[in-house]
């Protein structure tokens, strides 16, 4: 079980990381970050089968925090869209990226 779940989680995490680095659309970057967080959740659940209940507990906190983060993050993306009419992070450069 663990031998499948952990590599899968690592692969998902790597895809998420790659996505954040490669893509330039703020929404897609945020989606990739969510993918990372879900990779972490998978790792926690898989590990908690062997280690103990703490890992599953952690998953609930991660989900809660991810929801709060999404609320604030999407609000910020909307604020940027109102000014720039785009969410491509390489299209606006009032500040050097």
């Amino acid at each position, binding site marked *: 079980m663990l031998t499948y779940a952990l590599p899968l989680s690592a692969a998902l995490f790597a895809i998420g*990381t790659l996505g954040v680095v490669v893509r330039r659309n703020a929404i897609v970057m*945020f989606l990739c970050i969510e993918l990372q967080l879900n990779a972490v959740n998978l790792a926690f659940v898989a590990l908690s089968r062997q280690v103990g209940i703490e890992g599953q507990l*952690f998953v609930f906190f991660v989900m809660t925090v991810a929801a709060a983060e999404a609320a*604030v993050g999407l609000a*910020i993306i909307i604020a940027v869209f109102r000014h720039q009419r785009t969410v491509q*992070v390489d299209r606006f450069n009032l500040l050097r990226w």
Partner: protein
Amino acid sequence: MTLDYSSSFHYLVALLPECVLFVGGMGVLLAGVSKTDEQRRPELGWLALAVLAAAAVANGWLYSVSESGATAMIAVDKFRLFANWVFIVGAALTIAISLAYVSRQRLQAAEYYALIAFATVGMMVVAASRDLMIVFLGMETVSIAVYALAAFNRRDPRSAEAGLKYFLLGAFASGFLLFGIALIYGAAGSTNLQAIAVAVQDGAAAGGLMIPGMALLVTGFAFKVSAVPFHMWTPDAYEGAPTPVTAYMASAVKAAAFVAFARILFVGLDGVYDQWFPILWWIAAATMVVGNLVAVVQSSIKRMLAYSSIAHGGYLLVALVAANDAAAAGLLFYLFVYTVTTVGAFAVVVTVGRQSERDTAIEKYAGYGWRRPVLGTLMTLFLLSLAGFPGTGGFMAKFYVLQGAAEAHLWWLLVVLVLTTLVSYWYYLRVAWFMWMKEAPEGAVHRVGGATPFAIYVVLLVCGGIVLATGLLPGAAIDLAQGSVEGLRHWVAGTAPAH
């Protein structure tokens, strides 16, 4: 009073400063709804300051409370309480320099001050956490509140952009932090720092998960403390955010990340010191070199102070690499002095910008010292302290960190620290040179008029006083810092690897 968590009342006591501040922050929010806030903006700020004062009283009272054992999720130790002083002072000074800014920029005062209070609650939780779960929750409480604060000025496109960049990179860093925590949890079988230390020591955590977990955790924190090469977001976020928020981000938010980092490295991961030592060594050296060298070519004072804050992160990382009691005390002392100095410098930036984002170019400071001698003198003092000039708090802070590094025989890092400090004189003194030695260009409209708000003067005098006091008579503060780190590393004192 001794806390053994036999009754749920003890949990409340252990988290008293956090509870006070959280409830108070809610109160500030509520006070904001009751009326359209046009005239009430400064009052809400004073209310937030009163709440912070109450939290400070609670924090002081916690010194009389002891805990049984050292494995509870929430630590009631002096390390936490000292860190809380840094956060409370940082937040209070930030609110004081925000009072006029918030009115002038017509920001939503209640939300603004409440977010600062909530972020401070998060910092306190971070400083208190003896469990990676609490570290994560605290860090996110801080981060989410500060994302919103960075993007707070909705009329300013730069503020929104700064918020977006800070948010994306901050959430990205949280991902690394979390994956690291997951792997460490898998290796050690617990998220409790003491349990992790035990597992590492017994060799139970020797599996292939511990080292990658540690590396990912260090990467996540390197983002949070804006260490090179994970610093890209810092200059943009600091430059675009409203100036008082920048002051807060550069001081208290940074301090919180360092405090958590220190506790994790010194307590939980001390057994794998040999593995994280080279990683942090290189990060610290790169941070000092890159931060200082890039700061030299900056033309905006906010951006220069952002790179300066990266460079100071490098000095603080040296204290982490040294990983002994002297360095830990130096770290706390440094954080306190650095917080006060940075907010002081930003208070001047806010005043020069006349409570807006104008005049952040360093050329605009030409001749400013002669026109506003008090502000000019204090700004010079803060810059000298940031540079580490003898007689200022910044010098003593660097001195104590160097002492810790020398005890750990980190000679090369020590050389890098001293050399990059010499480089930093160039860009700090350049601002002072503009203020005192350059004439304002012909026809430059640099309005001096408009009284400096009373609160800013108070902040400047408090900051200036602390910078001088810690520089000339550092005894009391460093004694307090040394007392605060006693016992932090006791668990591994006998087993610490030969550094």
